[in-house]
């Protein structure tokens, strides 16, 4: 099985695009290593801006670059861009509608044992309540490639969250990707699992295990949190039971988004799997996932119990 870190798929794609288009810039916050932007910075120094450890300034600088027709990708740890510079993202980018892509890497619990200071598990809730930003969480490397190509063409402000480590490929290149359109990866009428990011892979594994027990489960990859694919959510609800899985707090993320749609349009039983409203258990991300049941078995268990 092929694996790749989304951040590496992102940076190799961005570098290739930026070689062809001088308006594509990348900025870093002393994060060129963690983002894997070293090659970009060396190859295209005129299209790279180092902002130092100053996320607020980085977002403002990007808004200023965008004002001059540059298309900046502001890159750094998701935990800092989604909190330290939240006001700059809100005012300078979203409210001002500046064409800036905020790329939060090492999101979720990627930084596992570094603790909650370095976890980004509230970012989706925060930005879902910030009008004017598209929001994406790619599932794997190939989808990140397709997403990055879309972002380079789009003129909409966006927030992207990706993880740190290598994740198994869900897709082959070229991955199918249309913004705001969920990918239905598996068909089944007994229940539906809606997942995003790294959890898509685990959701597929859960569905395979359940199929062996005779339980047919649909699986959706909800890579775009805004604009939200409400039609896919309503379709998933036809099964009568929807489980959402995300590397995010159980409040305000993918589960919240799905619940907002279903509670108003088609009340359906749900189970929201994610990180609890409590201080996180720490360990590497696989250990954190295992602790909270964010695994194929944990997801399968939720389907068995709830349907």
């Amino acid at each position, binding site marked *: 099985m092929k694996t790749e870190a989304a951040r590496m798929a992102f940076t190799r794609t961005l570098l290739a695009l930026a070689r062809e288009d001088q308006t594509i810039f990348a900025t870093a916050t002393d994060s060129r290593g963690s983002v894997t932007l070293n090659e970009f910075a060396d190859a295209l120094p005129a299209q790279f801006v180092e902002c130092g450890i100053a996320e607020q300034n980085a977002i403002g600088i990007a808004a200023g670059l*965008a004002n001059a027709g540059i298309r900046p990708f502001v890159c750094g740890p998701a935990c800092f861009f989604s909190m330290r510079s939240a006001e700059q993202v809100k005012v300078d980018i979203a409210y001002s509608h500046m064409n800036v892509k905020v790329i939060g890497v090492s999101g979720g619990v990627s930084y596992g044992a570094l603790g909650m200071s370095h976890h980004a598990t509230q970012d989706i809730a925060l930005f879902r309540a910030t009008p004017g930003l598209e929001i994406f969480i790619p599932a794997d490397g190939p989808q990140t490639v397709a997403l990055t190509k879309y972002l380079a063409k789009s003129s909409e402000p966006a927030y992207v969250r990706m993880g740190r480590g290598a994740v198994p490929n869900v897709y082959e290149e070229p991955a199918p990707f249309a913004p705001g359109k969920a990918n239905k990866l598996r068909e089944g009428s007994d229940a539906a699992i809606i997942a995003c990011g790294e959890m898509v892979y685990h959701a597929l594994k859960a569905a395979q295990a359940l199929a062996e027990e005779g339980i047919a489960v649909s699986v959706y990859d909800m890579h775009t949190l805004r604009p939200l694919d409400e039609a896919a959510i309503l379709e998933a609800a036809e099964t009568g039971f929807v489980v959402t899985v995300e590397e995010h707090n159980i409040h305000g993320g993918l589960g919240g988004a799905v619940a907002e749609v279903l509670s108003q349009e088609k009340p359906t039983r749900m189970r929201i799997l994610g990180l609890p409203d409590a201080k996180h258990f720490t360990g590497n991300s696989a250990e954190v996932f295992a602790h909270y049941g964010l695994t194929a078995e944990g997801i399968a268990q939720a389907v068995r119990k709830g349907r």
Partner: protein
Amino acid sequence: MDATTLQTIANQRRADAVTMIHRANTGHTGGSMSSLDILTTLYYAVLSVRPQEPHWPERDRFLLSKGHSVEGYLAVLADRGFFPKAELATFSMAGSRLIGHPNNQTPGVEVCTGALGHGLSVGVGMAIAAKRLQKSYRTFVLMGDGEQAEGSVWEAAMAGANYQLDNLYAIIDRNGLQISGATEDVMALEDFADKWRAFGWDVAEAAGNDPQSLLTYFETPRPAGKPHCLIARTIKGKGLPFAENRKDWHHKVPSAEQLLEAYAALGVKGVDWA
């Protein structure tokens, strides 16, 4: 344009601004008055802009980082022809694009400002863009003195010096007051010029309510290789006898009587749009 004419124009814009505030029954009187000679000097004598083509790529950039001084800014933009002057009558009315902080749906406004401490970072980005794209436009950011307590101002100050942005001007409306009182009592700034110098900026001071002093500054070549900081010493509420140097006029609204008193003090008959 000479300083005497600029002074006359600045007072007309003061009349526009106090009228807007009076009619809307909301606004930031003190800061708008202190900033108006700076805004007028920039928009009538310094900036290269095309009001009929607000997105002209070569335009000089201006950011009102102290976004609450919006009334004077909007009056200047309207008078320069960025949008019809009659629209000033909609200031802060339901649904208007002319609201209590600069909104970039208004022609001439580059980005939405108002959350303090954001403007200089955006200006640094604009100035880096000019360098990278080999454009000759300059970027001007007007900040308040109370605003200087925002840490992000100093992040931007470091970046401006790091990138040797000699196409960037940070202007500080140094009226010495903020909403709670004197800046030196709330969060002391002095020795303020030394702080900017220590951050690697070319620092100068000017009489910020005197267009001649401001013109002289902008007409004098500044050193290359460093961003420029102008500490413009001003009087909060400048031009309104009842408001000058009074902290309670930060966002107090003039009465009908005070409006007439303001017109008299400013030497204007009234406004041509209300």
